[in-house]
């Protein structure tokens, strides 16, 4: 079991968003999060990635094993595609970026400045970063935004091979990813107004 989440309660902007959420993620498993706009998917993923703390419950197994990809790709416009990837490879202590370039067919673009890519090409670069982190758990927020059909299947292939090597993935999305995976709908866990404990404005209610 790579990641386990128990009885999690989350707040955003001082308001509880989700309560009582729990799930586990095994090696080789992908879990797809679904829920309407504003349900709290982004909040949940940021929390699991350690960018925000939960107001209740426990997350275990998430230390330094998580590669997070959010709405912003962390791409430097003035570095080439190759330099962008190389930087992250060095930060995560891995040297080789050829495999990552391959998976998203980025070789033809490798020496372009990242700022001159189209929206979908940028996203491909952002996703290829995951392959150089070497982290077992991927936490992805709407990864296929702006991707065309080919690129979506590249993504699906990358996720599959990640799972095959014992990794796991947690993905929030509204659209079809071309992946077979379990789906977790977070709608039932939406919080109610009378849920106070732990929120930052608890004392004032």
């Amino acid at each position, binding site marked *: 079991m790579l990641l386990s989440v128990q009885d999690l309660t989350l707040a955003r902007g001082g308001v509880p968003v989700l309560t009582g959420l729990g799930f586990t993620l095994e090696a080789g498993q992908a879990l797809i999060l679904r829920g309407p706009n504003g349900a709290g998917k982004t909040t949940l993923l940021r929390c699991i990635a*350690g*960018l925000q703390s939960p107001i209740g419950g426990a997350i275990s197994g998430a230390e330094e094993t998580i590669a*997070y990809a959010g709405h912003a790709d*962390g*791409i*430097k416009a003035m570095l080439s595609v190759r330099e962008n990837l190389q930087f992250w490879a*060095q*930060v995560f202590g891995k040297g080789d970026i050829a495999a990552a370039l391959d998976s998203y067919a980025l070789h033809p673009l490798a020496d372009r400045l990242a700022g001159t890519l189209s929206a979908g090409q940028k996203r491909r670069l952002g996703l290829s*970063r995951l392959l150089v982190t070497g982290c077992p758990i991927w936490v992805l927020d709407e990864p296929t935004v702006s991707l065309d059909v080919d690129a979506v299947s590249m993504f699906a292939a990358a996720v599959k091979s990640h799972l095959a090597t014992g990794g796991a993935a947690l993905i929030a999305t509204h659209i079809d990813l071309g992946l077979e995976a379990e789906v977790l709908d977070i709608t039932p866990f939406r919080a109610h107004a009378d849920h106070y404990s732990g929120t930052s404005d608890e004392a004032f209610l």
Partner: protein
Amino acid sequence: MIALLLRDLRLAFRAGGGFGLGLAFFLIVTTLVPFSVGPTAELLGSIAPGVLWLGALLACLLSLDRLLALDYEDGTLDLLLTAPLPLEAAVSVKALAHWLTTGLPLVLAAPLLGVLLNLPPSGYGWLVVSLALGTPALSVIGTFGAALTVGIKRGGLLLSLLVLPLYVPTLIFGAEAARRGAMGLDPSTPLVMLAGITLGTIALMPFASAAVLRMGLR
């Protein structure tokens, strides 16, 4: 760590990266001073060390808003936070990169600008020494300010407001040392104080900056 330093330096040297802008700003402010206070040579000579210090400080200040905000805007900071790097070290490296691309060129260029402002000959050496000792503190304190305002859109002006009061001791000792040097007095006391401030801030500020960054990004 080194990857981060190299990336920051490389970005600074790329088009639009801002290397040299601080220097150019320093140059322009210094040239504007005679326009605004009038061209009398003695007057200029007597305010020269101060003006050069103030100019260097402002040039440093103006380049601060790129220090962390660019990384915040494109999401790099979030990713760095989840990467296996101690944030204190990352913050120190960023301050170092800032000093190398901004403070160091200012130190080297200051004597040239001294000529424009009729700096007395005895002043050049001490001006350079005092700037070399003082500008690292400016970068480190500035990183703290940048971390404080990182979540704020276009917080450049607020950043200046927060950082300038923190710059006061550095400025006073630095300018005093340069002024005493220019007047032929002994500048060692202010220089020692300046070195103390620089060492102290380098040792302690990264912790404050990292703490503030964690709070702000939460």
